[in-house]
């Protein structure tokens, strides 16, 4: 037989990480549902700017206020984007194709993580861009007064946390409804527990992500050492740990 029994793979390079990342980003908006979700994040951000314009006195229409208003609506949709990056592969069973083309599941997880961070940063850029536009078009005369770029860092951090937390829950559950319920249900339960149980209240900032993030909401990056430590401990508990557990689960999971 003239045909060879071995496969010569010496001339083939592994799939570069950049290509995996590009494909993962593309997957997040190449369906109608994905496009709506990404589009909604931008559209809602724009709507919020208009609302701020309508309800604020003219001297309150500052760049800082415009940007700040974008956080809440974005933070509802961004985690869903993070969750779907993972779980849609399982609900639509495309994971079979994804992992057949890139057998290293850790590389796929890394590409998805990078894609989630780019999307989170993208939401931030959209907020800043739209806020600047709103300030120029309808802001106070000195709309940019007192503004410094460093003031937007907490906002960026919060968006990255929230999209990564979504991704982590997606990895942990590999199931869209379960991940969404956990993401939105857990803070409510935590809030109840920490409000009702006296002896836990003091520990809240160390355990409860929402509490630890409060200083960041005040658009203040000058956290005290203790506040940074609290932020770190809650990020570890609610983002890093679920992420690692979910990642390990994915490595072992049978892809169906």
């Amino acid at each position, binding site marked *: 037989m003239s045909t060879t029994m071995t*496969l010569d793979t010496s001339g083939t390079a592994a799939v570069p990480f950049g290509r995996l990342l590009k494909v993962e980003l593309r997957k997040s908006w190449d369906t109608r549902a994905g496009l709506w979700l990404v589009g909604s994040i931008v559209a809602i951000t724009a709507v919020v700017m208009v609302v701020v314009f309508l309800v604020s006195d003219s001297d309150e229409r500052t760049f800082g206020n415009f940007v700040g208003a974008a956080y809440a609506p974005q933070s509802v949709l961004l985690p869903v984007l993070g969750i779907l990056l993972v779980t849609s592969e399982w609900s639509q069973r495309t994971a079979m*194709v994804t992992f057949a083309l890139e*057998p290293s599941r850790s590389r796929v997880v890394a590409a998805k993580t990078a894609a989630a961070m780019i999307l989170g940063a993208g939401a931030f850029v959209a907020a800043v861009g739209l806020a600047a536009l709103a300030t120029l078009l309808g802001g106070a005369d000195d709309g940019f007064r007192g503004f410094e770029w460093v003031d937007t860092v907490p906002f960026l951090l919060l968006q990255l946390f929230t999209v990564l937390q979504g991704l982590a829950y997606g990895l942990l559950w590999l199931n869209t409804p379960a991940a969404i319920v956990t993401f939105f249900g857990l803070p409510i339960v935590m809030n109840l527990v920490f409000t009702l149980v006296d002896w836990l209240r003091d520990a809240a900032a160390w355990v409860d992500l929402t509490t630890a993030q409060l200083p960041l909401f005040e658009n203040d990056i000058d956290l005290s050492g203790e506040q940074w430590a609290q932020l770190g401990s809650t990020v570890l508990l609610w983002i890093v740990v679920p992420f690692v557990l979910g990642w390990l689960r994915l490595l072992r999971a049978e892809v169906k």
Partner: protein
Amino acid sequence: MIEVQGLTRRYGDFLAVDDVTFSCEPGKVTGFLGPNGAGKTTTMRVMVGLTAPTRGRVTIGGHAYRDIPNPGRHVGVLLDAGAQHGGRTGREILQLGAATMGLPDSRVDEMLAMVSLSPKEAKRRMRNYSLGMKQRLGIAHALLGDPSVLILDEPANGLDPAGIRWMRDLLRGYAQRGGTVLLSSHLLNEVELIADEMVLIGQGKIVAQGDKRSLLASRGGGTLAVSQDNAALAEQLRRQGFEVAPAGDGLRVGADAAEVGRVALEARVVLTELRPSGGGLEDIFLELTGGTQREQVAGAGTGTTVDTGANA
């Protein structure tokens, strides 16, 4: 090219794949045949690293699948044509694959043309595709990276007779150019039409393998003869040491047609029908995998068609 060695996969108490060993050679289409739930899909999933084996291993061209760089360029995989996002267009699905493998968009158009999906169809979302269109898209996806090995799970499922013929020609041509093809099916008919080699699996175990002729030969093969005096013909055949069994309105004889004709001449019996015993492979298939059938195969000895796939 594909080497499966002692492959076992256990789910709790259930042995889905039990010490399976076989190989697929380049230049040939190997059919992986067995009833539903026999372990075909599990075996193929282990091949491409989606399921971990309990024991044993699979190599493709000497490599474990996970060690093949950019595997889409070497091994084309279609495990489930429906396992694609229903909201993506057919074209987008291929473009994602091409982007991962680092192929130009022109390759997508080539593949669409090859599987006869029109540009208009390619723009439709996959949830609106018929099963046959999904299979064509899946084949296009598997062939995107111009691989030298193809692993296809039930690729003919949902294709109409013309589609099956198209796939046969496609895979035959692919094998003739030196490619290795492994395709599974629960329908003997499809495999018989397309495959050069067959691997029969039932209840997780390989029950037979070889080409069609050697499978038939190993099971006796035989000829179906109908004559004006079956009793006399049977007697003469038995006297000469051939195995004879009544079948329908004739006899099934363990000899080839020429010998039966010669014996009939000697016995001066007029033959009204003489042909290789039909459904021979089907009998073998049903007999070998019989223990795994959901239906009781009452008519297995007479070539009755039993639909094994309707309700699994």
